[in-house]
């Protein structure tokens, strides 16, 4: 869904320190004025990955799940099937399986297997439990444009919410800054395996996202703090920032061109805010835009055209159903709740069929949580949206509906090449459900991340417990 060239991103990601000595010696030697350039052989290249992932999968043994109903996350459903997880990957499915010498077999009779759930909208770690001022680090509400802040620098890996989400089958999640600002800062995509640092959780090679926000939050927060105080000023604020970012990008491109041409040139001054915005204009950073009202989403898609960037996903999109065709035309996903509505006026027109109607129009529909409670039952959120759609005459199979939780979520985060579906070669991010996950009574029995058994409901002694809960009431309790 998100039109990003993976290799370009990787190239950017591996370029190193701020003043890296990318000598360009090959070019220089062939250049006519190599001597003149020798005074400036060090090109300034911005390191796009200064906080690299140190994620390591947990130990895994080859695991064969047999006799299960398998929902592959891309529209397929196979009954009485099997799947082999080995070396962190999905190695085989259905009849086409070559068994290794050693493996564990799990009888999946009566059970369901799905890809691990991916939540595109979480504030775990940045608004952790306990909810206190001291650890509430999700929103830099000091200026309407704060693209320079990165959510990962606020993530507290000891948030017990991660473990709760794991018990609900969530294997990956995007942590976003809050929605007070027009530009709230960078998001980060995490594996749901908290360790000592956020870097230990970072989803390797996942692109960055940026949080933007429409509507009443920015105007409420900044209305008496210098603005914006209206939606029209919100839009002026986005455009002003994009104009600045466009100039910033041009300066750097001029610098790079001049350097390549052997000119004696000086790198522009770094600006962290514009660096993130430039990343969007370059197609490296995905826009995740909090937006409820249909009319505002249409305006934002025009702003997107004006400044030639791509919105990856509107978040909440409570009125997505009113403009589902336009979402499809513009290749913009919508990350939605099943049935939240009415808590503020821009959420007043929320309807239960929103997700299904967006899907029906051919747009990329995602079911998200934005909640440390909702993230524990995203399968039920999808089930509600699926059944409400059917009752309105929108005939979507369960197998197709599961895309809302995994494949479409992964696409909107730019990680679908690695996870989000059960396909040979993909990461073994897998959930074994006690029964049909479209049932209220279904529970995630086993959750695998990169083939490692991260959660086993039948083995309470193995459940992960955050530092915060250690030695407290209810430590290791059935949560």
């Amino acid at each position, binding site marked *: 869904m998100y039109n990003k060239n993976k290799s370009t991103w990787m190239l950017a990601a591996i370029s190193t320190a701020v003043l890296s000595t990318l000598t360009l010696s090959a070019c220089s030697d062939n250049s006519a004025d190599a001597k003149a350039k020798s005074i400036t052989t060090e090109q300034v290249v911005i390191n796009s990955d200064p906080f690299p992932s140190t994620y390591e999968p947990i130990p895994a043994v080859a695991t064969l799940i047999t006799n299960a109903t398998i929902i592959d996350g891309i529209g397929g459903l196979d009954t009485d099937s099997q799947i082999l997880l080995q070396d962190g990957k999905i190695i085989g499915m259905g009849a086409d399986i070559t068994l290794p010498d050693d493996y564990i077999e799990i009888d999946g009779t009566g059970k369901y297997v799905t890809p691990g759930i991916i939540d595109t909208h979480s504030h775990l770690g940045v608004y952790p*439990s*306990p*909810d*206190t001022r001291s650890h509430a680090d999700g929103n830099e509400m000091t200026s309407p444009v704060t693209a320079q802040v990165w959510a990962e620098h606020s993530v507290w890996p000891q948030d*017990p*919410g991660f473990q*709760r989400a794991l018990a609900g089958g969530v294997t990956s999640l995007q942590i976003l800054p809050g929605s007070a600002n027009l530009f709230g800062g960078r998001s980060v995509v995490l594996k749901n395996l908290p360790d000592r640092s956020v870097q230990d959780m970072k989803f390797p090679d996942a692109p960055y996202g940026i949080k933007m926000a429409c509507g*009443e939050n920015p105007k*409420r927060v900044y209305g008496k703090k210098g603005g914006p105080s209206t939606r029209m000023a919100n839009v002026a604020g986005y455009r002003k920032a994009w104009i600045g970012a466009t100039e910033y990008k041009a300066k750097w491109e001029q610098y790079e061109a001049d350097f390549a041409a052997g000119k004696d040139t000086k790198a522009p001054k770094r600006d962290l805010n514009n660096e993130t915005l430039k990343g969007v204009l370059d197609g490296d950073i995905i826009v995740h835009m909090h937006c409820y009202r249909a009319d505002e989403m249409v305006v934002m898609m025009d702003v997107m055209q004006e400044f030639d960037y791509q919105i990856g996903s509107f978040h909440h999109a409570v009125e997505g*159903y*009113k403009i*589902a*065709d336009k979402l499809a035309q513009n290749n913009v996903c919508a990350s939605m709740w099943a*049935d*939240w*509505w*009415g*808590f*503020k*006026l821009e959420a*007043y*027109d*929320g*309807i*239960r*069929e929103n997700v299904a*109607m967006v899907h029906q*129009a051919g747009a990329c529909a995602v079911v998200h949580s934005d909640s*440390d*409670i909702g993230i*524990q*039952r995203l399968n*039920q959120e999808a*089930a*509600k949206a*699926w*059944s*409400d759609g059917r*009752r*309105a*005459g*929108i005939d979507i199979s369960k197998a197709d509906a599961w895309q809302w939780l995994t494949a479409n979520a992964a696409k909107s985060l730019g990680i679908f090449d690695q996870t989000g579906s059960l396909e040979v070669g993909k990461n073994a991010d897998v959930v074994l459900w006690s029964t049909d996950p*479209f*049932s*209220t*009574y*279904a*529970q995630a029995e086993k959750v695998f991340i990169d083939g490692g058994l991260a959660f086993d409901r039948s083995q309470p002694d193995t459940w992960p417990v955050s530092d*915060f*809960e250690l030695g*407290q*009431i*209810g430590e290791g*309790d*059935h*949560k």
Partner: protein
Amino acid sequence: MKRLLTKFTKVGKVSAFGLSISIISISAALSLGISPSASASQFAIVGGKVHTLSAQGTLDEATVLIKDGKVEQIIAGTQSPLGYERIDAAGKVVTPGFIGAYTALGLVEVGFSAGQVDASTTNHPVTTIGAAVDVSYGINADSSLIPITRMEGFTSAVTGIEYSDYLFKGQGAVIQLTDNDPLLKARAFMALSVNNSSASDTGGTRGTLWVALKQALNEAEYAIDADLSPTQPWHGMISRADAKALAHVVQGHKPLLIKADRKADLLHIIALKQTFTNLKIVIISGSDAWRVADELAAAQIPVIVNPEYNLPGAFDTLGATLANAGRLEQAGVKVAIGIETHNIRLATQHAGNAVANGMSYDAALASLTKHVAEIFGMQQQIGSLAPGMRADVVVWSGDPLEVTEAAEHVFIGGEPINMQSRQTLLRDRYLHLKQDKPMVYTRP
């Protein structure tokens, strides 16, 4: 009747866009000659699996007869007597109308930055502690939340103040989710909170909050026999209006709802009942309630739980667990489920999750019906199906606790409701985006 027929005609025109259940049910009802507003209507809901929540228990195949706004009787089998409009419920599930256990329905349209909200109270000299506040004056039967909620099988609700500047949240009400005469019981309960945030707002410490609470109850006991007229002196901490309201509470005429989570608070509440022996205390939330389940059972204190809350959101909810409802049930505590407003309709899902985490199915159904009615002293009218009870009846497509099932027919006081809301109209307007004229001309 006239309004319903008008709606039906319009709905009929757009039926090609995809029939919703509401359209089917209304058209079926009308084709059978059902008159939705005729007060003498008689209905037979035939052949469903009926959870009566009364002495008749659960009947796998039974017929519910509705007459004059009441349940007339429930008969095993599929016979439909003459003179009753027949609603086929074969393969369906029939329950009493569900009751929103703790909501602000009718008091709030949009809670945040959108004008008046009657579910919060600020300072006024008529009260010094908030007890006098009476929400029955704030209930708006025209609220869009009413049709949105009732078409999902909730036929009545407990409603009260959500945010109070005072120790108490005042007196709440029990309402029916109808277009007219919503009040079933005004001043049905008194509410307050003693958890972390309330202590912070009430003198900054539980050391103040609890002394204030006991002082208020003591003064209320004194006020039972006092002359509270303006010509007589009254030097209490609480106002005269507070004293009048609280006097009913200390005499046990109405329940006192106390929001509390941690074990220490719950033990103080149990002790409070030993001091003020007539109090009818109900715990709200009760994250740690499972830790004192036996004591709560012995003190006959019910709990209205939020069964999905399992995070240590504050230092007084460290024990929060999805197993709370089931553990309380096992200890013999009466449990109700449903703390929400706009989405109180999701209490069915919450109850289903309580079942997935250890509660019995029967107790989960009771937590949405009978137990709520009993807590608020309404069990002679609502919360179960038995002869003479209000005919608040719901026909579900299947198990109501399954997130994929839905209410198909809803009766309130013996009347079938129009299965339509602002939300279904918005849906039907936008189901097909290609229209010749702007969408504002599409009126489903």
